[in-house]
């Protein structure tokens, strides 16, 4: 018999599995929400578009989406790098670059939604 309990001791697998699915559902729901909102606009011009984003619900919903994208992208890209980048040093460098890029995207999205655009 294989001792299945000792295959891994990292234990982040089940957590990542759950995060990947919860964030996926958030993104799917948000996509439908945004589509419905855009379709219901009287016309897609600057004034309507800009006024739409003044609603707090638009900004908070977008933050849910953005955070989901960042978490989901991290798990997905990390898995890809784990599979294809054999050299541990290079893999570490790529992990760091991906994390920094995702943090920067998060800050950028925040600035667009609440800053001065």
């Amino acid at each position: 018999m294989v001792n299945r309990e000792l295959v891994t001791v990292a234990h982040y697998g089940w957590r990542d599995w759950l995060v990947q699915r919860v964030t996926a559902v958030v993104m799917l729901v948000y996509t439908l929400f945004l589509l419905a909102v855009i379709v219901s606009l009287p016309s897609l011009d600057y004034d309507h578009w800009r006024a739409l984003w003044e609603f707090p619900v638009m900004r908070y919903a977008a933050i849910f989406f953005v955070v989901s994208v960042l978490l989901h992208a991290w798990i997905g890209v990390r898995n890809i790098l784990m599979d294809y980048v054999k050299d541990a040093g290079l893999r570490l460098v790529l992990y760091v670059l991906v994390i920094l890029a995702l943090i920067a995207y998060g800050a950028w999205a925040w600035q667009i939604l609440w800053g001065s655009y």
Partner: protein
Amino acid sequence: MSTARPKFLNLFLIRQPVPAVVSVLHRASGAILFLFLWLFLIGLQRSLASPESFDELKALAGEPLVKLVMLGLLWAYLHHGFAGIRHLGLDLRWGIQLPGARASAWAVLVLSLGLTVVFGVLIW
């Protein structure tokens, strides 16, 4: 254990089953979306910054090359999304028998490509 088995690993010559094609494209489309995240953010930023930048963005979206990029990203979004829904279904043990899994894999391919083509016709 090392046995001298024959290896045949040219991915371009192996005929993959449809669920495998969907799986590979799920990964590829996810990587594409990650690599182009900055483009979505620039788009949102320019669309909100000012009436002028909104109009510039609209004019840019009329360029054939930009339309192709947009359609490529739309396909990646649709394929990743539909393959994701299929994945969630498999988690819930829906369609885990081979015929069902093949049918849902075909549905993902056809829906994402089909909707991309429909949208492409609409904007062209």
